[in-house]
């Protein structure tokens, strides 16, 4: 088991299977199809993301450097949370970007029944180490434990 320490953006505890995007995660391109056509498993629709395209994102531990793309990104993330199609948590290797932060804050403040812990600044070593399917546990204080 390997442990990483990050900054808590939204606190919470969760254990789940990792899904890893090594490039920037385009929130709109990834979730739009799933939201528009009622896909509860939130299959990634971003053809430019070879790591995630076609994979189910709902309930997974989404590991990524940052999000990129349209300034609708925050509200798209908010909608995925409101509709219960969000990842189990989001783990950023870099400091969180403004669009992902907006989505995380909006969900935290405005939704009563949403839980999506968010931790950032986990470092490049975290993103190099974690692989798809690994079991990841996120703790309240931003500690992330990864086991094969």
């Amino acid at each position, binding site marked *: 088991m390997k442990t990483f320490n990050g900054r808590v953006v939204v606190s919470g505890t969760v254990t789940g299977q990792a899904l890893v995007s090594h490039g920037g995660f385009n929130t709109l391109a990834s979730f*739009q199809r799933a939201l528009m056509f009622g896909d509860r498993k939130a299959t990634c629709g971003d053809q430019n993301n070879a790591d995630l395209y076609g994979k189910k994102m709902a309930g997974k531990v989404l590991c990524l450097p940052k999000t*990129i793309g349209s300034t609708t990104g*925050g*509200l798209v993330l908010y909608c995925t949370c409101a509709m219960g199609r969000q990842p189990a948590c989001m783990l950023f290797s870099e400091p969180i970007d403004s669009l992902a932060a*907006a989505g995380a804050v*909006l969900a935290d403040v405005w939704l009563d029944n949403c839980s999506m812990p968010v931790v950032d600044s986990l470092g490049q070593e975290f993103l190099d180490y974690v692989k798809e399917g690994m079991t990841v546990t996120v703790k309240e204080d931003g500690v992330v434990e990864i086991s094969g």
Partner: protein
Amino acid sequence: MSKGVMQLTQEQQDILDGKEGEVLAKVMKTLVMYGSLFGAESMEKVTGTYNHLVTSVGVTALKPVYDLIETLIDAGAVSSKKFTADPRPMDDNMPCSFLQNLVFKKFMFSRQESYEKQLQKLGLLEKDAFTCACYLPEVGNTPKMGDVLSWSESSAVVYANSVLGARCNRNSGILDLMGAIVGYVPKVGLLTDEGRKASWKIDVRTTSKPEAQLLGSCIGMKVMEDVPYITGLDRFFDGLDDEARTYLKDFGAATASNGAVGLYHVEGLTPEAVQQGQALLKEGYQTFVITDETLKQTYENYPVVWKNKDAKPKLCFIGCPHMTLAQLVDWTHKVDKALKEAGNRKVCIPTVFTTAPDVIKAFKKMPEYSILQDTGVVLSFVCPLMYMENPLCNRMPVITASNKLRTYSTAKYYTNDEILRQITRGGKDA
């Protein structure tokens, strides 16, 4: 949620404490939490005359957003600034099949009418105030240098910051509205002098004026969200005139969509670069040289995601972001001349020029309008990106002169000259 230390004024603290109602308190709480994540120590007053919102579409998938907006309206928490919004997703002028129209109206944008009513209650500037190029003079949402904004729409934010010298972060949808509701935004990033300094020096050494959309793409992919300071580009312009502003509009949109640039400086051209010069460069900045070969490689590396990569194009979009009036006039003459040279009366590929409703009104009063009609080109206020979201449209081979549209859709990007060749000669040489 982690919290930094933010010093609020008494007025801001009162709002946060709920003295103006629970909903406004939540709006302020959202902004304070968001700002704290980025180390904001205070809030800055929004001083721009008007706001601009990215969310202009009534799509079922965004129901939670409309519910949130209804909560705001019910509580009287409407925008303190009138605002413009991004383009509408549908226009009856657009070439559409019966089935495509059915998908647009019955499935994708069935909430458009009700959402526009919400926008009017929130403070929409006027009923047709829908364009991504809200800063064009015909539209009238043109911030002044130093204005603090709470805008979203990446192409509008980068233009306001870079070409107009306003101060605005790359806000997400909803956050843009919340800043305008309370009239304050977290003082962080591009709102600060330090945040406006460049960490990249980009040296343009091309032998001729580079294609705006290509140069912007190349720089955006290199610097991502950083601020670039660009040298060697001002030699192609006579100051910040209409031609330069149009060029920078398209250039900036490409930097913002192919990367995440919110501000760029062009030496000798953009206002802060003219005032401060290379003092805008941060200590330890990185350097990147762009030559003809760099741009050629960028162009050749774009993936083509059409099923049949050699398919004959069925539609062409020009105007993402929306075209300026001068651009419409220029393209009209270019298409007309090229058609005559090719011996053709109408464009060979259905072609749509997109621009703001107010620009369309102005263009219709000009002699070029009838010339454009004769070429068969359609003039529309639609958002090409939203058009391409229709599953029946995104499987069509569409070509475009927009690097933003290329990034967010299946459309294939061509340079302006190649687009002209495609639509006037069907891609054949003269």
